[in-house]
């Protein structure tokens, strides 16, 4: 009897378990193993050698790239969150329910088009003889270097994560108890102050998770730093491709990948911990 129940449960959880096993655990284990292999005469050999870790961690290029990627992703999370908040706040509190549905629908539309296509279309806007510089030229200014800058990379990160961040923020703002806002007003808290004293603390979990998603997406992104940032300075994702191209150094690329996974896990744990800090339920 008991056996049949657990079998029943297993039937439904099995596909998920297998998926995780084949496509997450197995590649991760392989990646870890790979990072200890060695390369001789452009050929990889199974080995147990810490040389890849020592080499990569000993290079200042790696740490510069690591610092840059971390800074860019953090900046992207902060900028996107700040820019998205007024948008999601207005949708949550100022629009009628009907208009809110339309706004949510509009936020979903960007996902219809491939991110790569959207980034390419930014090139048309940002290049030296693109649309924006064309407008500047018509009033006798420019051209300003827009493409292949950190600014352009940041636009790419925003393109990638802005709609998602708005949606995630929105769903935490919608569920705020409106009487809390009225209570704050009633206790002499003005409109703007209420946003900081009540709305943001109430929606903290959603706001932190939204920023976390933006960080994760930007930290691992390859498209924007290459096609909008011009590949220079080098982010970790670019460094991985460079490393694999130069002399089949897959084991060293594995070291970079594992460092990125470790960083993302640490940031995710810290963010979730911060989001739920002080909550006892």
């Amino acid at each position, binding site marked *: 009897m008991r056996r049949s129940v657990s079998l029943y449960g297993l039937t439904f959880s099995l596909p998920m378990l297998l998926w995780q096993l084949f496509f997450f655990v197995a590649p991760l284990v392989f990646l870890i193993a790979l990072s200890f292999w060695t390369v001789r005469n452009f050929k990889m050999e199974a080995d147990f050698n810490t040389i890849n870790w020592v080499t990569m961690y000993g290079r200042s290029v790696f740490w510069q790239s690591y610092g840059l990627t971390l800074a860019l992703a953090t900046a992207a999370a902060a900028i996107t969150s700040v820019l998205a908040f007024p948008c999601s706040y207005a949708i949550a509190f100022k629009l009628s329910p009907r208009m809110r549905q339309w706004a949510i629908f509009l936020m979903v539309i960007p996902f219809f088009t491939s991110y790569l296509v959207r980034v390419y279309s930014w090139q048309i806007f940002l290049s030296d003889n693109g649309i924006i510089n064309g407008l500047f030229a018509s009033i006798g200014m420019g051209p300003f270097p827009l493409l292949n800058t950190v600014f352009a990379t940041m636009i790419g990160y925003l393109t990638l994560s802005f709609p998602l961040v708005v949606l995630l923020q929105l769903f935490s703002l919608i569920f705020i*108890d409106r009487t809390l806002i*009225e209570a*704050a007003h009633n*206790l002499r808290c003005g409109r703007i102050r209420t946003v900081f004293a009540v709305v943001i603390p109430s929606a*903290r979990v959603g706001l932190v998770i939204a920023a976390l998603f933006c960080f994760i997406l930007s930290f691992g992104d390859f498209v924007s730093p290459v096609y909008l940032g011009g590949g220079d300075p080098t982010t970790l994702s670019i460094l991985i491709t460079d490393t694999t191209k130069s002399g089949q150094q897959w084991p060293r690329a594995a070291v970079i990948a594992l460092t990125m996974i470790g960083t993302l896990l640490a940031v995710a744990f810290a963010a979730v911990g911060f989001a739920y800090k002080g909550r*006892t339920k």
Partner: protein
Amino acid sequence: MQGNALVTFDGVIKRFGGFVAVQKLDLEIHKGEFLAIMGSSGCGKTTTLRMLAGLEAPSEGEIRLGGKPINDLPTWKRDTPMVWQSLALFPFLNVIENVEFALKMRGVGATERRKRAGNWLERMQISEFAERNISQLSGGQRQRVALARSLVVEPEILLLDEPLSALDAHLKVRMQSVLQNLQRELGITFVYVTHSQSEAFAMADRVVIMSKGVVEQVGSAQEIYRAPRTRFVAEFLGSSNIFAGQIAADGTLSTSTGQYRLPRDMSGTRPKSTATLVVLDTRSYLSSVEPGPEFDWVRAKVVGEEFTGAMAKIYLETADGSELRVQSGYEELAKLPMNTGQDLFVYWLPEDGHVLPIA
């Protein structure tokens, strides 16, 4: 009474689209009184309270607080703290931070506000929970936090929107006395919105009964109970037998169930005019034999009983389908055949009747 008014509603009307929530409200709330606004849901009582708090703007008319018009004052510039039905405590702040909130908004320094908040926690007997989260408190403790949070700024008036409705009966009675004592000690005005007659009558100095956006009656619990002004009030209280009819030439009331004498002080009623007679259920009696000539009576069938402690309430139905009720002790009831459908006489002294001023 002019100098005594803290709040004045002067011809206040509130519309939501085509719906009129409050119709032409004229009401004075006195300094230091415990006023209850009572009515069923949708009667406009909460809207009235929210207009006073500044959470809704009146469509017409003027609200004055301490003589000054406050129509255009946003809620954060009024001193009209409110206690919500849901309490609306901030879940992301602990107990003492919740109480400190209003002081912080007024720019009171950290040590000063902690001290003042601490005093209120002590007064509400919840000092030991100062550092707890709201989610760790019981319903009664949360009530006390909500009260402390509103009272910490020492306002002249406190608005309460059904704050006890979520509590169980036993706790409700305890919180009622907490509220009553607090109001007496502070000497400030409490405006208490409720749908519960027992809460309003137990605590309030004056009760306002509203229906469909109109004030039906204002008065003390005793006044309203003994002398309801309108048929709605008499029906809402649910403690009277109501007979509507026409005054006959001999000065009696002619109804579909019989001819009844009116109490002596009703000399003003003219023949042919309509009138409504109400008799309290505690002043109505039951008998299985026809009562003496000093009484008026009506025949009715027993339809149900309700036991409330020492007394029982018997529900009966007359031949024309109107409902009657009689409150009686168990000894008297034991002498009567009380089966459902039993035909009995409901009788009363004409002097115990009350004629509604508005029929």
